């Protein structure tokens, strides 16, 4: 299980400082949910963690600074799925999931039998075996999200960075995807960092939460510590009531003004 530490992370895009002074830690096998208003920099944070944006400060996985790793080595530690992944309509599910093996395949070489076996077993685990030769363009929203997850899992990275994994999914599929992520992380000891815009949902699944606002960390801690009426009122400009639900997890309700 891999521990993620972030020290004094700052991201400047163009002339705009999007994030600065971000510090946090995620214990090995834990789930951190990053929340924040639209445009607060949640996705930017995730992309910086994945090494996709120039940033200052340090990101360490198990004490190893990612800055010192080659891109391929980094890709074996962190798997990243963007909010709206590009899914080439005529690529098959199997070929797409196989792309996750890229960090293990020689630059101009081709995949080994081992790579295909890993891919096949991931597809089987996500109940996608029967879809293996189907084109991505012929999948439903829920299936697409599972396929993206499969691609991230074939990477066999101990840290999973998921940007809004439930975007555009209906209620049932949101639940399925998050349950799946939770099962996988418990089974494999994956460390998960997600952005989630649904606060109650985030509060139900995450071990810890971080609220991003004003270009930095506004609050972090357990879901009960972060999801308070006062913090949400201030940073989301929303009037809410927070109730305590099952297992002491907070539930956020919108209140009509």
């Amino acid at each position, binding site marked *: 299980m891999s521990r993620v530490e972030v020290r004094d992370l700052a991201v400047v895009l163009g002339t705009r400082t999007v994030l600065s002074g971000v510090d946090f830690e995620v214990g090995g096998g834990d789930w951190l949910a990053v929340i924040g208003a639209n445009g607060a920099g949640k996705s930017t944070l995730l992309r910086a963690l*994945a*090494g*996709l944006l120039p940033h200052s400060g340090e990101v360490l996985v198990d004490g190893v600074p990612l800055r010192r790793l080659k*891109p*391929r*080595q*980094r*890709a*074996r530690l962190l*798997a*990243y799925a*963007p909010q709206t*992944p*590009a899914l*080439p*309509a005529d*690529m098959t599910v*199997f*070929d797409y999931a196989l*792309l*996750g093996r*890229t*960090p293990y*395949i020689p*630059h*101009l070489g*081709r995949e080994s039998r*081992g790579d*295909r*076996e*890993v*891919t*096949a*077993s*991931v*597809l*089987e*685990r996500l109940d996608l*075996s029967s879809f*293996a*030769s189907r084109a991505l*363009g012929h999948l439903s929203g829920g299936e697409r999200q599972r396929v993206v997850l499969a691609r991230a*899992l074939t*990477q*066999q990275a101990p840290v999973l960075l998921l940007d809004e994994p439930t975007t555009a999914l209906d*209620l049932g599929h949101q639940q399925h995807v998050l*349950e799946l992520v*939770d*099962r*996988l992380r*418990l*089974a*494999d000891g994956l460390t998960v960092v997600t952005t989630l815009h649904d606060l*109650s949902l985030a509060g*139900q699944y995450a071990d810890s939460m971080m609220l991003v606002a004003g270009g930095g960390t506004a609050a972090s801690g357990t879901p009960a510590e972060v999801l308070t009426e006062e913090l949400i009122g201030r940073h989301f400009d929303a009037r809410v009531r927070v109730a305590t*639900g*099952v297992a002491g*997890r907070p*539930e956020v*309700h919108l209140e009509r003004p």
Partner: protein
Amino acid sequence: MTRLSRPSAPSGDKDAPVGGEIVPPGGRSVAARRAPRRAAGLGLAPASAACFFLLASMLAALLAGAADMAPGKVALQLLDWLPFVSLDSGLAPVERALLFELRLPRVLLAAIVGGLLACAGAGYQGVFRNPLADPYLLGAAAGAGLTTTAAIVFMKGDGSALVVPVAAFAGAVGGVLLAYALGNVAGRGGGTATLVLAGVAVTSFLSAVQTFLQQLNVEELQRIYSWILGNVGGGWDQVWLVAPYALVSVVVLLLYGRLLDVLSVGDDEAASLGLDVARVRLVVLLAASLATASAVAVSGLIGFVGIVVPHVVRRLAGGSYRVVLPISLVGGGAFLVLADLIARTVIAPAELPIGVVTAFVGAPFFVAVLRLTRRVDT
């Protein structure tokens, strides 16, 4: 507000760890055995179909032509030229020379140029993640058009046969480099959108200069147009001229097929998979532009091949660039050999410009393929 409540805590025993551990010692997992044998591999059926198509069209193009030679005798003669075969074809020496010096290099050049353009088109489409990209997108055509026009106008017909190919090659490479430099200056970071816009700007600018040159020298218009519309009748000289560049660019493009597949999921994801996106894009662009420039140098500006052939291949053989690139290479060659056969036979002994044929025959063919393989576009 609807809330999702979380089902009871998962037991976790349903799942084995991902990957390696699931495979029992000494055996392959059930899933692995059920997995497709070859992932994104070059399917045998489409590959052999494309090769058959190429060989058949080359044979047809060798057997038929403006000169009146019996196809049977030509076939015997071709067999006679094979190593360790000795046959009497009954062709007169002059006919044999015509076959060897005109028809054979012409068929080969058509195959090479068609393959280069189709392969380059597929490469451009991969780099720009856009099925509408074609080999002339970045100013190769406009650059070659300008320099060739200049060469024709200023040389006034004298000068060696080398002048036009060299000018066309330099112009095509120069046009692409200009667009690339401009795109990087304007875009910073090498996004593809600015690169395409830079290509549009360079193309219009160079075309404007070319048109101006053309208008000042109307007497050369015929020669300029006949070059632009394309011709693969350059003979052995041109075959040898283009061969080394064709070989290098095609080898590089074919090697990069898998990386283009990785690129197709987007810059961010490709980079998160450990790929140096900017470098892959640059290498493929360079190789595809080299292929385009070499094709243009020996054949003029033949349109339609670079965009249509990869499309048809994608429809018939799947979307992976590991398949699209090699099959476009073979299929593009076959397509242009047939186009040239039509160009030199329909109004024999006169010839149609090959560019006219590729568009005239290619467009309906393309529509037919689109219609036959109709599917839901997403």
